């Protein structure tokens, strides 16, 4: 592995604060050599190889060091380059952060490299081992320099949950689509998860129409979901209507017991009727409780039987999308999400359904720092899901609004372009393995570029998401294209 030929980039220099265990500065051998910010490099020192990440690149030229002089010369309507051989004075100094050293294994750098040490472009096999990548794992994209596929161990990536965070339009959903493709492509021998998507805007429904993935996809429109009232408990009803008081809860519990005893099928209508006819429940309690139950009834989600039947819905290597785009009310979306998450988690705990990955788009709406009815179950899955192979993928464009509990339980963070300073600060606090120098790079990421930190990789890695092979989402259309499609449909 270490015998692979390397490209010499330059030499480590001494500055007031480097080389140290935290920082290395090096000058490029020639200003024609191209080094990129975020690139991995190797430094040979004392028969060891130190791996580092380029954090900044600065070009210098003595002729242009004095701004007022440059201005005076340029005012003579001649560029400095035509008067002096300025190109001969270019040199490039790069700063890098040491990540560790390779001996028999990867170790933290405990002693700095020496000034004068040669600096090389990192080799792919070295980097693969250093980062903890797997050869036939989940292939999300490529590190740009060196060109290396980001192939991730599924267990490291997903078992301890993953959060994907970026501003609108940075490519989160595109990246998730790539992740879904990778999960659907896996064979039985490789180990396949079932994939469930809570899709508030219908971004992933295009999988259903895809030539390859269509057969592996089932989409359930939110308005068709039915919650089986007989399968709920009074506590679960209260989860959907948190205003139900303790007194009302006790009353409801009693009604439930009676209805179960009767052996007849029942829904909210029957519960409400039972409450009405009950002589044991005080009138004030009745009125309040009925009012709350009527609220639930109006959602039209509650019925006698469950639809779809979640006991038999999930299949390894297939994806189930709950398309909530037709539902406008946030409360209703949360209600459905609560039900689906709780049911799936319970079934998984009893091993009645296969291990799954639960992907929640716009996670800050379902599991906010504030209150939401589905927050509790999502946090529960976040805390306990690992043990039962129920993996969570939270997607959000406002990480600061996402529940800190849930986010902190996501051991892998995939971060794309983030600009909001509050979000950046929040990521700094909640993302393990991300330091200030990596944080500074986040606002400058291009669409489709991401940094992966946490359990999935040994060190934060910047990469470009691969091209999606599945049918694009309708949201990937431009505004003009969407307008054209609409009119063509009408015609």
């Amino acid at each position, binding site marked *: 592995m270490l015998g692979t030929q390397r490209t010499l980039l330059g030499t480590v220099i001494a500055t007031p604060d480097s080389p140290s265990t935290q920082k290395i500065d090096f000058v490029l051998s020639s200003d024609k050599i191209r080094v990129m910010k975020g690139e991995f490099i190797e430094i040979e020192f004392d028969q060891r190889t130190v791996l580092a990440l380029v954090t900044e690149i600065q070009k210098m030229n003595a002729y242009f060091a004095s701004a007022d002089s440059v201005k005076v*010369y340029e*005012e*003579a309507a001649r560029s400095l380059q*035509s008067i*002096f*051989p300025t190109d001969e004075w270019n040199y490039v100094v790069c700063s890098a952060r040491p990540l560790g050293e390779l001996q028999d294994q990867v170790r933290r750098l405990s002693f700095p490299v020496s000034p004068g040490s040669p600096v090389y472009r990192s080799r792919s096999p070295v980097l693969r081992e250093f980062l903890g990548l797997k050869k036939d794992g989940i292939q999300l994209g490529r590190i740009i320099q060196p060109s290396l596929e980001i192939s991730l161990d599924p267990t490291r990536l997903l078992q301890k949950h993953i959060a994907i965070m970026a501003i609108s339009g940075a490519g989160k959903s595109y990246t998730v689509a790539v992740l879904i493709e990778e999960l659907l492509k896996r064979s039985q021998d490789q180990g396949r998860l079932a994939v469930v998507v809570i899709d508030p805007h219908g971004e992933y429904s295009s999988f259903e129409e895809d030539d390859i993935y269509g057969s592996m996809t089932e989409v359930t429109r939110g308005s068709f979901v039915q919650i089986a009232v007989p399968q709920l408990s009074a506590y679960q009803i209260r989860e959907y209507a948190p205003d139900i008081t303790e007194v009302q809860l006790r009353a409801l519990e009693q009604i439930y017991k009676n209805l179960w005893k009767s052996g007849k099928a029942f829904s909210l209508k029957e519960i409400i009727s039972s409450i009405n006819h009950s002589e044991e429940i005080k009138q004030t309690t009745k009125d309040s409780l009925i009012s709350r139950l009527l609220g639930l009834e109006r959602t039209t989600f509650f019925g006698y039987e469950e639809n779809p039947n979640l006991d038999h819905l999930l299949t390894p290597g297939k994806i189930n999308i709950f398309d909530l785009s037709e539902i406008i009310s946030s409360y209703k979306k949360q209600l459905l999400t609560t039900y689906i998450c709780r049911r799936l988690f319970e079934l998984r705990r009893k091993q009645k359904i296969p291990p799954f990955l639960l992907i929640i788009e716009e996670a800050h709406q379902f599991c906010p720092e504030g209150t939401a009815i589905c927050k509790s179950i999502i946090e529960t899955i976040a805390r306990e899901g690992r043990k039962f192979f129920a993996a969570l993928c939270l997607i959000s464009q406002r990480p600061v609004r996402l529940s800190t509990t849930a986010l902190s339980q996501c051991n892998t963070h995939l971060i794309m372009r983030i600009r909001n300073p509050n979000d950046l600060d929040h990521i700094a606090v909640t993302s393990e393995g991300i330091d200030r120098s990596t944080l500074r790079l986040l606002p400058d990421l291009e669409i489709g570029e991401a940094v992966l930190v946490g359990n999935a990789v040994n060190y934060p890695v910047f990469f470009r998401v691969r091209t999606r092979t599945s049918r694009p989402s309708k949201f990937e259309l431009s505004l003009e294209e969407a307008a054209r499609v609409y009119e063509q449909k009408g015609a």
Partner: protein
Amino acid sequence: MIEIPLQSRSIGGSTPRSLTQQLEDIAKVIRKAGLERKKLADCLTKANGLFNDLSLHYKDKICEEEFVYQEVIQSDLNGLTVCGVDGGLIVKSLLGADVLLTRAIAVVITYGRKGIFKATYFPSKLPELKFMLSTEAMRGGEFDTLAGIMRTHQELETAYRLLSAEDKHVDIIIMDGALRSVINSYQRSSGNQEVQKHAAALQNTLQKFLNLADEQDTLIAWCIKDSKTSEFLTFLGRTLPSLASNISGLLDIDYRKILKTSRDIEIFYFLLPLGYRSFVMQLGEEGRPLDPTLDTSIYTFFLRCAPYDAPLRIELAYPQSKKHVPNIANKIASVILPLSQFHAGYSVPAPIVEADGRARIRNEEFSTIIGILQRRSLQPGIWMQRRERSPFKF
């Protein structure tokens, strides 16, 4: 010499004068001197055209030209190859030894239509340092003299080797510093054997260099950035009385005193318009070259390249009859002017700027070498002077 009292006296005691007041007094003196020089320069402007008789009369001293100054027609640099040569030097007197580091470089620039076409460096972009250490106890100033000779020698050696090696013709070489200083350095070298040895080598190299340049038809210009001469004014001091009555306003000022108390550069700053050169003078006693063994005479003129900078003084060596010297001066000026005019307040030819930058020796380089020597030599070895090795950083 100006002496400004630090305290003004008033009746009953002395009152300290503020720094601002003292500086204002000094500024007044400087302004007055400047005004007087300007007045003289304005008068001399009127003398333009009256030089014909003078040049005939003093033909051993000045070239046959009819003017105090004339316009320079700038050359088109396209196709020209110009070389700038400069050297760097650090000299230190240590306890235990004297040391010097020198380096010299020639920057060869070929110009195209849009400016620089190609730039090359001789012997390389970062030439090797030449290091010399003397444990011999030299008398005060001898080592400095030696250092100067060695640096100059290295510059000349570099220029000579460039001409010997270069496949392509170099049209003009611009040397940094005065040719006269080169000659003085080896003529006035002391009795010290080491110094004399290097002085002889310098003289020999200079001769070879001048001869080779002449063979190859390469012009050499010696460019002095901060001239301190007063030769032009001394000459004018001798010759102006005969013209005074024809120069309006000259007799209204004490021109003799101004000429005596000024330097050439101070008068020419006011006298020379932008893009003009002065008349050409021969250096040394009339009719006697500075170095008879060189078979060449040295001439000099001033050239105004920037509106807010003092004129440059240029020296040139010419072995033949004085008749062609003004033409040579024009050629040299026509190339140096376009190379030096880009900064309104700093006029140095661009190849010299580049060569100076490349030749500079940083204190860090010197410290590294001395540090190695100190660590590897036995005590007492060599020591930096106490004033430079205080353990305290004030």
